[in-house]
């Protein structure tokens, strides 16, 4: 691992002042469950690490029925799971956090880190860059793409977004707060994720000298929500496909549904098709299946990942059925 300078600012303003104007100069260190491995493998080699450990304002969980939930970026998965308010009001968020197995990761990994973790694409991890290219040629379309994207994969990015929390947070209409050199801005989580067009970009809408400070989730009133993950392996692995749904029911009919797929595209993938299929319908096997089918209607699988189309379809269907069954928050 390359040597680096280690900084421990005590305020978010001081932290961003320590970040460089180019990606790669500095990295923000929270739990380090992803970043340290990337550094040890020379995938990233920052000259400076900016630790968030001493910035008190980045922690904390606050819930108010009127305004909803605020999660500080350095809240750990364990803290999230230990929160009775979250358990009561956002059961699908708890499901998502439970998908992050192992107490070691839960007690160290942070919610901000989950949103900003880098793709698991093995070409990226082997040093071929974010877009997995060798001599300018993309490796994924003809390579081992069994875990890669089936949606939004027209290139040059083929990886899937690895976040466990993002699909359900987007489905719930979450926003994030970003600290920059000039101050604080808010951005919807949906718009926080972007598909990079060059290997020098990142997969989230931050400037190199900005950082995520808070996650804001609207109140869950009347919302049915659920997350469903399809996995080859229960623990210490990422799902093959996931779907998060949130909707209201009025008179037994679905109102304003949100369907967001995970692990199928370079960004968490809101499916307008599935939402459209679901809107105004009663929830049942048939309508849920229709929505699942609609969610993958525009899928363009690569040479080795056609099976993920079916998995995403089933994940959407099961998430819808689970959400309807689960009852809404009063």
């Amino acid at each position, binding site marked *: *691992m390359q*040597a*680096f*300078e*280690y900084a*421990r600012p005590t305020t978010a303003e001081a932290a961003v002042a320590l970040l460089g104007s180019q990606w790669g100069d500095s990295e923000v*260190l929270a739990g*380090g*469950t992803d970043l*340290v*491995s990337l550094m*040890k*493998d020379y995938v990233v080699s920052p000259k400076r*690490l900016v*630790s968030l*450990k001493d910035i008190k304002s980045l922690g904390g969980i606050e819930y108010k029925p009127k305004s909803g939930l605020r999660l500080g970026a350095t809240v750990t998965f*364990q803290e999230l799971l230990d929160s009775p308010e979250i358990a009561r009001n956002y059961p699908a968020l708890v499901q998502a956090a439970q998908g992050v*197995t*192992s*107490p*070691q*990761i839960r*007690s*160290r990994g942070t919610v901000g880190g989950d949103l900003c973790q880098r793709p698991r694409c*093995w070409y990226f991890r*082997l040093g071929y860059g974010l877009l997995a290219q060798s001599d300018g040629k993309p490796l994924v379309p003809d*390579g*081992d793409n*069994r875990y890669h994207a089936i949606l939004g994969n027209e290139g040059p990015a083929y990886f899937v977004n690895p976040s466990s929390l993002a699909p359900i947070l987007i489905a719930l209409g979450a926003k994030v707060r970003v600290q920059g050199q000039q101050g604080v801005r808010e951005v919807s989580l949906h718009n926080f994720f972007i598909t990079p067009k060059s290997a020098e970009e990142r997969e989230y809408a931050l400037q190199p000298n900005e950082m995520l400070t808070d996650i804001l989730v609207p109140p869950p009133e009347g919302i049915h929500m659920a997350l469903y993950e*399809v*996995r*080859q*392996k*229960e*623990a*210490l*692995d990422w799902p*093959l496909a996931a779907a998060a749904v949130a909707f209201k029911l009025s008179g037994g009919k679905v109102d304003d549904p949100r369907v967001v797929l995970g692990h199928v595209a370079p960004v968490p993938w809101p499916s307008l098709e599935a939402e459209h299929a679901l809107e105004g319908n009663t929830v049942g096997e048939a309508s849920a299946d229709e929505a699942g089918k609609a969610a993958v209607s525009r899928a363009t699988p690569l040479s080795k990942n056609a*099976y993920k189309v*079916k*998995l995403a379809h*089933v994940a959407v269907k099961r998430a819808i059925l689970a959400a309807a069954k689960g009852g809404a928050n009063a």
Partner: protein
Amino acid sequence: MTTVHIQLRVNGKGHELDLAANKFLLDVLREDLGLTGSKRGCDDSSCGACTVLVNGEPQMSCIMLAASHADDDIATIEGVAVDHHLDPLQLGFAEEGGAQCGYCTPGIILTAKSLLAKYPEPTDAEINDALSGNLCRCTGYTQILASVKRAIEILRQSRLAPGAANGLHKSPVAWTSPIGARVPMVDSREKTTGAGIYTDDIRLPGMLVGKVLHSPHAHAGIRAINVQEALALPGVRAVLTGANTPVKYGILPIGHDETIFAVDKVRYIGDNVAAVAAESEAVAEEALRRIRVDYDVLPAYFDPEKSMLAEANLIHDERPRNIEKEYHHHFGDVEAGFARSDLIREDRFDCAEVTHAALEPHSTVARFDPADAGSLTVWSSTQVPYYLQKTLAATLQMPEERVRVIKPLVGGGFGGKSEVIPLELAAAVLARRAARPVKITYTREEVFYAHRGRPRTIIDLKTGVQRDGRLMAVEARIVQDGGAYCGYGPVTILYSGQLLNAMYAIPNVKFDGYRVLTNKPACGAMRGHGTVNARFAFEAQLDRIAAVLGVDPAEIRRRNFLKPPCTTINGLRVLSYGYPECLERVVERSGWREKRGKLPYGRGIGLAGSHYVSGAANPIIRSTMPQTTVRLRLDPSGEVTIFSGAAEIGQGSDTVHVQIVAGELSLEMDRVKLVAADTARTPVDLGSYSSRVTFMAGNAALDAARQAKARVLEAAARRLGCTAADLRLEAGKIFRDEDSRPAMSFSEAAGLAAGAEQFLEVSGSYSPPSDAQGGKFKGGGVGPSPAYSYSAQAVEVTVDTHTGEITVDRIVAAHDCGKAINPLAVEGQVEGSVWMGLGQALQEEMLWENGRLMNAGLLEYHSASTLESPPIEPILVESNDPEGPFGAKEAGEGSLAAVIPAVSNAIYDAVGVWITSLPITPEKVLKAIKEKQKSEIRTQNLRDHYSDF
């Protein structure tokens, strides 16, 4: 580099340290504080071996910057036992076998401690969830769960009766034989307290760090190597390349095709090109970057079937068509057998490459003493100290007696440390060149590339049976993708053919085996060596045949049992044969009759069998020397010391030695000490491979103990004025005739036997009998064993028919181990084998792309955690082999293979599809279900069509 001054609080004690700001806590604990109980398994937060408690929470110290934790309370394994009193968890792990190799144990105990601090009475599910971040490769987690539950029980008792004494080896009032007793491993204290020393824990004064430069090309000539810039770097003490080390070596006498560093060409990505020894890891790494290698890239071969067609750019010039070795066996007459068959099935099976992934990375420390013509001492994580000594002597061109190999604790082997791994030689040559001790420890990625695992295997299998299911003929064409060097290759391919036999009675067998070279790391011996994939194919095809015939899968196996004692058509002698009992016990326990074919769609049960050798009857290097010699020394006090070259690698080899000697001499186990696996002090044992230790070293230990007993009784008889035949040794005392009062204690008699020299030494040995050494045909030497173990297993699965996800609900595994000298350890071996086979069945796979490994990490390799490891119910069957020590046979490998076909057979029962390639992923299951539905629709349409007429 910025340094920081911090105070670190570890196990309640403050330490003032000046540290590099970027130093990780694991490195500080191990290097600065000497707390080596925290283990490095992956160094990238995948395995949990480095777990420490931070303010009571389990965290992985390999990703924690030490400087960030000055305010925290850190607890390591060294602080768990207070004033030498073991914690209930440490006792639980000893008593219930939770620590095999012990490498994951400190992390697991700490994680469990954190759990119990919060929830004193957790459920099984909560324990498994809590331990899901701590990987273990030995146990299959069943005994780990039992160990934690035992600790909970001890804690519960101590709450009820505070102050009750707890200790590990509680002496019972009357002596009972340890043979057949569930005794804790003799090294369990070291392994549960963090006190045990593994190779990477060793630090010698002046020790340098060694690092190896690996090839970035799969196949390339080396035009030139320039090491000047590396040598010029301050802190570099030695740089070596192939020019310095031209001697060829290999584990098999017929396969000396490796050199320590590549000479003239590299043959796989990761091949060893050069190495440096430097004052620090950072300097060593920088030096590697400064070595200039001029490559001439060559076309490479990655697919064995394409490689077999090669005409140019051969991987080794002397191996035409890139075939390392091919064997063609024909016993009986398969054509006649097929002609008399009522049903013939032909299938192709394709099994992915898998690897051992022992939690302890390979590590070697070498020290060269130039005085007196030079002597070399090597501490290494090896299963074969003797072969390592020989190879070091050969490649360094030193006399064998000047090379000493010491095996510290080994954190798992599974065959991956059963041949010489290049770092072992590299460390030694660097130490000699630098005249300083050198340590090389592989990174996890290097471990994956060092490999020597189970090759990808393509099997074309043809089986003919009569209407009643009786086997008439079997023909197998097996191609193994062996990688770039020979290694154990010819043995692996031979096992795959030879051990088609000795399971069932097959009158006609033909085998065409090809061990093919490709530009990937060499494969080698892995648990169930050579037999596993062929057994999967055979047992899966047998079920397919049973399905066509309408015969119950258990019944078709019964109809083909061997009738021992017998010699198979290819010359394998079978004396004890517990397979029928294994099968019946599994059928009984699993509820087979009530479940097979009767569970709802999506659920199924399957069974299968497997077997393995109890040591190869023929040594790797032909010789008249016994396979094992064990020496015993009796002190006048009656204490006994065993000297054995056998290599404990977590399987319990040390413990079984002590049990056998203590049992035969009727001593308490704590009066028997063991010195093992140090070539300067212990006699030759060939090593821990082919499941040979209990059978062979055990027999040698028993032989030695019997001699010692005879000498002691003779001495007692002389004093008592009778003959030794009048005396018997019981419970540490010597009795005359039918006298119920002892005539003398064992110690007293031992003192007499030791005589004026105060010293008595005997040695025992073991060589397999000549009638167990197999047929006299080419390749006939591989496969013969003095005894075979047998296993039958039933597996229940649930298949999600919409996603292809597979859940294994239950495994019942019966293993014929001859006699369980230590049932606790035998169950641990059976469970570990089954678990490792299950990983191969469902998840594990080395994914290569143009010679590059895509998943060279424990997460990416999909090593199963507690959460996808089902409960395994072991059943021990004791067939009492006439030649095994106390009747014992092997236990550590034979149960691996059966679980794979049992899973695939269960999937057939659940959803009606046959999966013929490994691993069985959701993708493959989903695809097969879809194809089946399509073909059913086609058939239905066809029926509808014809019904119109």
